[in-house]
């Protein structure tokens, strides 16, 4: 086989692999969206239970995302720009919730913050119980979604050329000013995509919420939990909520990429010409 033929065969194999995988990823999504007539969606999505679930999901995720940005951004900046002993171990710790099965995350949260746990016990004796409240949903969402933001934010801050920050400092800018005027704008894209992933993951959060927060209608029953609750009752309602969740996730991911959606970024086009 000539080199040229081999090259073509390799390229064809890559194309085939891509087509198969993309079809595999897309077919279930298309099947989901087309399995309920669009005209029926408004009716299926406006039951009081679903509207409650929309409210709970929105509230819990807004609070969780505010917490993730508020605590995650400075934490990521610190971890990315400082070298200290145990840094790698710390980053691994942050990544652990990403690979933890959500049900295990839920159990871990109960053991820590449930009435029998070290933190929950103190709260419970003060008359505050976290399980079965919206606070539990916020904690579950924050726990599983924060690592997505942290990971992305740490890489974004770490990728900034240190000379830019040093130059600003020598020109007299304070730490906060350097952070706000240099570091944040330079890492904006990484922060935005990390936030989008975290938000999308949080909206879809199921396992940890179910185990830790329970499925209390109007209080802890988020949209993914409503899907699970509707499954034995009405498959159509479950699918309708599924479509809603898919649309929300797609919107979040698309919005985060909006400026660059149809233009190939420079690094990507460099890769594509190398094949």
């Amino acid at each position, binding site marked *: 086989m000539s080199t040229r033929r081999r090259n073509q065969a390799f390229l064809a194999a890559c194309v085939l692999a891509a087509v198969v995988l993309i079809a595999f990823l897309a077919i279930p999504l298309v*099947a989901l969206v*087309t*399995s*309920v*007539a669009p005209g029926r969606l408004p009716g299926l999505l406006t039951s009081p239970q679903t509207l409650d679930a929309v409210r709970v999901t929105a509230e819990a995720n807004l609070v969780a995302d505010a917490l993730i940005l508020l605590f995650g951004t400075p934490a990521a900046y610190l971890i990315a720009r400082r070298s200290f002993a145990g840094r790698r171990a710390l980053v691994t710790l942050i990544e652990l919730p990403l690979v933890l099965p959500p049900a295990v995350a839920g*159990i871990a949260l*109960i*053991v820590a913050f*449930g*009435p*029998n*746990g070290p933190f*929950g016990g103190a709260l419970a004796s003060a008359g505050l*119980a976290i*399980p*079965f409240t919206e606070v539990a949903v916020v904690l579950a969402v924050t726990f599983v979604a924060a690592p997505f933001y942290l990971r992305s934010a740490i890489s974004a801050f770490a990728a900034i050329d240190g000379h830019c920050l040093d130059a600003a400092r020598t020109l007299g800018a304070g730490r906060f000013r350097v952070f706000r005027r240099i570091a944040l704008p330079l890492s904006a894209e990484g922060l935005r995509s990390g936030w989008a992933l975290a938000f999308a993951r949080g909206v879809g959060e199921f396992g940890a919420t*179910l*185990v*830790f927060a*329970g*499925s*209390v*209608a109007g*209080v*802890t*029953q988020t949209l993914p939990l409503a899907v*699970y*609750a509707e*499954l*034995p*009752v009405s*498959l*159509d309602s479950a*699918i309708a909520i599924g479509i809603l969740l898919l649309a929300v996730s797609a919107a979040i991911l698309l919005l985060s990429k909006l400026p660059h959606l149809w233009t190939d970024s420079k690094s990507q086009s460099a890769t594509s010409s190398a094949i």
Partner: protein
Amino acid sequence: MKTGVAAFLAVLAAGVLGACGSNDTLTVYGASSLKQVLPKFDASPTYSFAGSDVLAQQIENGAPADLFAAASPEYPKLLAAKRICETPVPFASNTLVIIVPSGSTGINSLSDLEVGPSRRLAVGATAVPIGNYTREALASSGAGTVLTRNTVSDEQDAAGIVSKVALGSADAGIAYVTDAKSSDGRVRAVALPASAQPVVTYMACVVVRDGANTTAAKDYLTKLTGPDGQAALKAAGFGPAPSK
């Protein structure tokens, strides 16, 4: 289109499961509450445990079950009416109890849930058998307020109820006595008033489909309703099948 999706999933599941066992292995679909006892009674079949409603749906869509052991008469009768399984046979009964964390002392009867502070309860959702039995029991003992004055998490199966109580996120739950027994001592059972006790009959039926291992399924069912099966069920906390 809905049935199209379901049929597609069922075919997929059937294909995956069918590839795992040859034709002569017996496949038993059992209600979640039987998960502890059936493999102990007979380890040879391939088991699949889930909510009876879910299993019935799968069998209706062609899943490769040979025997269906359900936690209620409803689903086997439904399948029998559609000629997907033979006449259902009762093989056990179960009892509903309140479960509380083994260390807790505040709840000692149903009436404790009708007074005092609002508590966190884990009960079955309305769509699943345990949820139906729970609502039936509360209604018949005039304790309907239990579900409105407390904070209630609707669980899709007994596992959800027991785990919430065992881990302490719920103060109490309503589950089968057999679930309380199989919780490693993490939960304690509190009896419901006898007047509130619903009749929870477990029924099994031999599945009718092409290629079903009918002989083995019938043998299994005979053994299950015989002395060996009844002894195993009794040891797990089940009661005998109601005589009628």
